[in-house]
């Protein structure tokens, strides 16, 4: 009797909670992420202010002035140019290298599997530590790479401390760290491709270069796109490698967005300019990540359709 009485009112309550369950489950994660919005909007406010830590009394809203100043500020255009060059160079080289290595290791042999796992080791070193490793090797005094450069006839190679080779050096470190990421993604992609088109092409005696351009590459495009977008988003925000290697120098040769914002904040204590720079970077990454996520959702839908 009493059991019956407690059962009856519980049933509808259970139904409601079942409908609410997904929201309840995802709410904590969402709340914490919304917590990020507090510092985010603080940054938006700072970007619209004249705010220098050295002159806190002069803090006031100047609205779009920080952004307007960028138009005529050569340092800003330098930052934009350096960031884009860095992202373009690193992702370009990594994509070509990663694709090449993935093609070399495509066959499922025990040796190839071993090598592909071994090549992941650079990816497991922290980027800042990778920079320090390369700093030791490129030291003009005792670095082994500098020594090899002199053997090749390149005297007095300054690597990261000379403006002409600084970009080359940090791109080299970035390529060393992140090529394995693209490699492993494309390797998984290559190995997941259906076999039939390749077998048919082989039966018909189609040249291998033609197969690569007309079958392999088009079928690999979703994987290429995912790898490239993911890397571009990370690369344009690069901080660790460049800051550990040169702190943005020599001069302003390597002041990418985050490094420039960091220096503006902690060295020139110009909070307003720093925040405005980060806002522009955020807009760029937001656009890129929207494309990335849309692409990812579409891929997932296609994968579901195939299965």
């Amino acid at each position, binding site marked *: 009797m009493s059991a019956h009485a407690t059962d009856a009112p519980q049933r509808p309550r259970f139904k409601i909670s079942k409908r609410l369950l997904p929201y309840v489950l995802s709410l904590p994660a969402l709340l914490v992420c919304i917590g990020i919005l507090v510092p985010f909007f603080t940054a938006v406010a700072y970007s619209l202010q004249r705010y220098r830590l050295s002159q806190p009394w002069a803090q006031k809203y100047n609205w779009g002035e920080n952004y307007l100043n960028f138009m005529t500020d050569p340092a800003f255009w330098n930052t934009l140019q350096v960031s884009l060059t860095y992202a373009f160079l690193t992702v370009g080289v990594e994509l070509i290298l990663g694709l090449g290595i993935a093609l070399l290791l495509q066959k499922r042999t025990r040796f190839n599997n071993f090598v592909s796992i071994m090549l992941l080791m650079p990816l497991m070193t922290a980027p800042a530590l990778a920079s320090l490793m390369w700093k*030791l090797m490129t030291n003009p005094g005792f670095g082994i790479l500098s020594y090899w450069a002199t053997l090749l006839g390149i005297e007095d190679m300054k690597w990261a401390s000379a403006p002409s080779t600084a970009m080359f050096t940090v791109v080299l470190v970035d390529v060393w760290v992140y090529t394995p990421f693209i490699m492993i993604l494309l390797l998984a992609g290559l190995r997941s491709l259906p076999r039939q088109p390749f077998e048919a092409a082989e039966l018909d005696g189609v040249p291998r270069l033609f197969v690569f351009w007309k079958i392999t590459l088009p079928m690999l495009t979703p994987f290429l796109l995912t790898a490239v977008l993911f890397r571009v988003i990370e690369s344009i925000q690069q901080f660790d490698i460049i800051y550990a290697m040169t702190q943005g120098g020599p001069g302003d040769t390597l002041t990418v967005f985050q490094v420039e914002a960091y220096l503006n904040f902690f060295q020139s204590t110009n909070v307003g300019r720093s925040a405005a720079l980060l806002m522009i970077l955020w807009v760029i990454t937001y656009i890129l990540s929207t494309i990335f996520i849309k692409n990812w959702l579409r891929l997932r839908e296609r994968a579901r359709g195939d299965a």
Partner: protein
Amino acid sequence: MQSISPLERMLRGTALSVVIFFFMFPIFWIFLMSFQTNETILRVPPSMIFEPTLTNYRSLISGTLEGSTATLEIKFMGNLYNSLFLSVTSVAVGLILGVPAAYAFAKLKFRGSEDIAFTLLSFRFAPPLLVLLPLTI
């Protein structure tokens, strides 16, 4: 698989050797350095011949490195503790928050699930400094 000519086999082998050398050498070289004293590390030209020593590793644990000119204080154990603490707590918090949400997105169908997942994912790509800097003032 099409048969590969000896020339191609050789080219592939060379390419793979270069790749392995490029990605493995820095790790190998720093590994060697870790068994050397400052004197042998700073030699010009660099050489792979040296008497291996464990002093560097011992000093990580003891906290002091005796050099020829001065004694260096090394806070490695403290740093290790900080790193461990940071990674364990962030993974734990991430799991506590992420696992229920992931279950909801994967197993349950509900209105707005794509939008919420999209929002959560877009935070992943925000510039870290943008969130960090306002917290430092």
